[in-house]
């Protein structure tokens, strides 16, 4: 029995999701990413003497939206707390967060790993402000601080230690990211740091219930990194315990280049944050009316949408799963169906050519379909042309490529390039006669019973008509001719 079999991992995740509010949590500065350093600052987020925080109501609405989607209890009364520590990117010397009384408590998220469903319980969701960023000069000893991010609202989403493998942790994170994107509260970009994850990992002997000593792992900036770091830690714990050692409770940093974790200096992790209620902010009272208002404005969640795609649009489960994995993709799909209501055909195009094109153009993370290269209405029109018999599926692929480059409508492209399908029997019969005359040996073989050669003849006829012949018609006419009718 290997160490991996004898030990069972216990994993809990803490996710920090930067919220997509227009302004910061406690001042009117823009919360957007990418401005030149310290452009989005004011006396409040710079922690100047005497200034005071004023809560951005949108942040509370976003937190409630997340809480409702995750089926948390929304606290009618929660409290702001100060987390005290010194660091240059923390302007006030404390972070305004929530501690004893968070806004959302409990709840759960359902995940699927290798076809098996699992329910992961949530501990809490609370609101807090982000810090600025320290920028270390590569040459000298100088460090600079950019406070643009200081005061950008965050949700901290904490799971129970219900995850039992790196794959489950990955599935939980992906499900959560899909959800926050559906809710339009976070863009879920791990590389840019708007969706960050710390993992608490421990192992215990299989069949026991007591929790082992846990280690907190930080500094993972992709889903793969989270999975790898957790796998690394599980293996390390198992090895240490196998060798009769003990696990030290500590914070470790993932090194993506070396693919290993290393302990943070204990000085950095041994904080006493001296939490206490923030006297500058009254307790947060959330009325039932506000919860109801947020509930009414909730978008359709992925689960409900998947079910609807199967039931109302008669899509296979697999298609529904892929299409609802991203809100923008599902929105796009529905917009195409609205233009041309052949759901299965649309699904094939979206899952195939559209996703391929997005990947080629590196638009996988684009948030809205308006940024996409092929307008939904145009794709609908293209599929309609196929269904009308105006062009073949093969020609349609060519037209799609051009739509992606030129942005033109399919009808215009088909007309301009003379790609309209030939459905008149005359020219097709002429082409068939020409092909049969050119291959008398193959005709003889066919007639001797080699039915498979039909495909060869079809291909030759399509080639002779530059792909424009209507394939079913070619099939019928060829069969008639070959059978000697």
């Amino acid at each position, binding site marked *: 029995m290997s160490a991996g079999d004898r030990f069972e991992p216990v994993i809990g995740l803490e996710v920090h999701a930067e919220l997509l509010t227009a302004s910061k949590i406690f001042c009117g500065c823009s919360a957007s990413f990418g401005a030149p350093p310290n452009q989005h600052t004011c*006396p409040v987020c*710079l*922690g*100047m*003497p*005497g*200034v*005071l*925080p*004023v*809560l951005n109501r949108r942040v509370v609405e976003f937190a409630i939206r997340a809480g409702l989607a995750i089926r948390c209890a929304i606290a009618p009364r929660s409290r702001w707390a*100060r987390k*005290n520590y*010194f660091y*240059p990117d923390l*302007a*006030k*010397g*404390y972070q305004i967060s929530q501690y004893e009384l968070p806004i959302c408590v409990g709840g759960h998220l359902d995940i699927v790993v290798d076809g098996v469903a699992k329910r992961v319980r949530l501990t809490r969701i609370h609101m807090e402000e982000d810090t600025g960023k320290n920028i270390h000069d590569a040459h000298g*000893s100088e*460090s600079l*601080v950019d406070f643009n991010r200081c005061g950008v609202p965050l949700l901290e989403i904490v799971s129970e230690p219900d995850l039992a493998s790196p794959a489950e942790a990955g599935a939980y994170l992906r499900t959560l990211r899909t959800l926050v994107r559906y809710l339009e509260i976070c863009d879920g970009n791990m590389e840019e740091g708007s969706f960050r994850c710390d993992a608490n990992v421990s192992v215990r002997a299989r069949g026991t219930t007591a929790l082992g000593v846990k280690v907190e792992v930080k500094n993972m900036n992709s889903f793969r990194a989270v999975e790898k770091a957790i796998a690394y830690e599980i293996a390390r714990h198992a090895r240490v315990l196998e060798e009769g050692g003990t696990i030290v409770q500590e914070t470790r940093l993932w090194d993506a280049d070396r693919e290993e974790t290393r302990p943070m200096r204990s000085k950095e992790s041994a904080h*006493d944050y*001296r*939490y*206490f209620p923030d*006297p*500058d*902010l*009254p307790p947060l009272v959330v009325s039932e009316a506000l919860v109801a208002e947020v509930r009414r404005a909730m978008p359709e969640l992925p689960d409900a949408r998947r079910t609807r795609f199967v039931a109302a649009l008669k899509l296979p489960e697999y298609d529904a799963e892929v299409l609802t994995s991203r809100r923008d993709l599902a929105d796009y799909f529905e917009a195409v169906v609205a233009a041309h209501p052949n759901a299965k055909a649309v699904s094939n195009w979206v899952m195939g050519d559209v996703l391929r094109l997005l990947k080629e153009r590196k638009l996988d993370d684009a948030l809205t379909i308006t940024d996409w290269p092929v307008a939904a209405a145009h794709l609908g029109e293209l599929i309609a042309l196929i269904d009308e018999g105006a062009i073949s599926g093969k020609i349609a692929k060519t037209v799609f490529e051009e739509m992606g480059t030129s942005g033109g409508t399919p009808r215009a492209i088909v007309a301009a390039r003379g790609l309209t399908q030939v459905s008149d029997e005359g020219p097709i019969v002429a082409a068939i006669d020409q092909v049969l005359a050119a291959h008398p040996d193959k005709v003889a073989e066919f007639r001797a019973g080699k039915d498979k050669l039909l495909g060869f003849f079809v291909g030759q006829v399509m080639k002779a008509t530059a792909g424009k012949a209507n394939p079913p018609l070619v099939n019928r006419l060829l069969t008639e001719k070959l059978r000697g009718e």
Partner: protein
Amino acid sequence: MTAAFDQPTITDAARRLRAGELSATELTRAALARAAARAADLHAFITVAEEAALRDAAASDARLRAGKPAGALEGIPIAIKDVIATAGIRTTAGSRILADFVPPYDATVTARLRAAGAVIVGKTNCDEFAMGSSNENSAFGPARNPWDVTRVPGGSSGGSAVAVAASLALGSLGTDTGGSIRLPASYCGVVGMKPTYGRVSRYGVIAYASSLDQVGPFARDVTDCALLLGVLAGHDARDSTSVERAVPDYGDALAGGAKGLRIAIPGEYFVEGMEPDVERAVQSAVETLGGLGAQIGSVSLPHTEYAVSAYYVVATAEASSNLARYDGVRYGSRVDGDGTLLEMYRRTRAAGFGDEVKRRIMLGTYALSAGYYDAYYLKAQRVRTLILNDFARVFQDADVIVTPTAPTTAFRLGEKVADPLQMYLSDIFTISVNLAGLPAISLPCGIDAAGLPIGLQIIGPPFGEELVLRAARAYEAATDWHTRRPPAPGGSR
């Protein structure tokens, strides 16, 4: 010229300005001249904003000539405690760490003064970050009491009290966290008021203890005090702890008289060790109020004895967090060390903060530390609730509570510096009011054998500023203590 408005009240000066008998520029020049003349012996100001004041005064004169005064304080020279932000005017909080800090923003109270037409003459001396009872904790040296320059003016808003007492300004702003307006008002023989917590915005007021700090006015008399309060009070969207509640006309409250007022006298405020002259003066004031038709009754505020302890836990806990922002990174002074971050923090804060500030940061850090939080911070908060309940019970049957403002009159400079606990006891009668968030005023009610003013404290229920002002004005109208003036420059007793 000076003689004509030697000791004017705001109310007098405003009338004469509007009548054209006096110009804002003359009034401001007189105040500035007096401030300059008394700079050495009183040290009331950390920064005198002469140029800006004269510019503002000229603008006031233009509006007055046009018959369009901006507001109730048009052309009136006002001094502001140096913990309150003034855009473009250095704001030090009495600390080395902010010795060169010029805020790019006005505190809301500063903006309200400006909008009412006030001329800001300068920033007054105070204990560093408002931590102190004598003004001796100022990094710029103490302000001195104009009644006797060998004595303290009280703290922490000492300079603001001195400025009004010595006519260096017609009114001033202070902040009161545990008595920092009322104690210096008492020691300097002027009127000082701490409003209900949430009545006046704290935006731009450098925080000492956020759940206790409140801005309030100093004035010559109760009428001026009501006028200033009316300008300062009101909800501010930039302070989430300020209260959305209409501001009454405090001037209207003054005429009510003492008749029918139910006045409670708490036994716990007449303690052993208090100065006999103070006790006599306060008893006499109570008799005066009784003679004016007020009903006097004895009450008990049984948790009073725990107030000072609870205060020094809550206030220092908040301060330890509030002062963390002075780290040398973004503004204020910085002392670099060996190139490490930790050493820069250590040296900056070691050099930037004075002893009392360090003492309170350490106390508060300790009170919030893991393992001590429940025993100190939470317990202190529970005491606070008990004190609040004491007051609530008394106010079921009383309109105001009358007590001495302090157990003694002004003590000598240096007398209590070596003994912080003795110093802390100066605030024994004022601290409970902050813990309970109540409004209270201190006004002159006598002169002791040493020739020093004695203060009477009148405490009201939450948002009971009108009751407090009404009682205070009734007493003032029946007595002449508020007309007494400190001796001429150079005098000491």
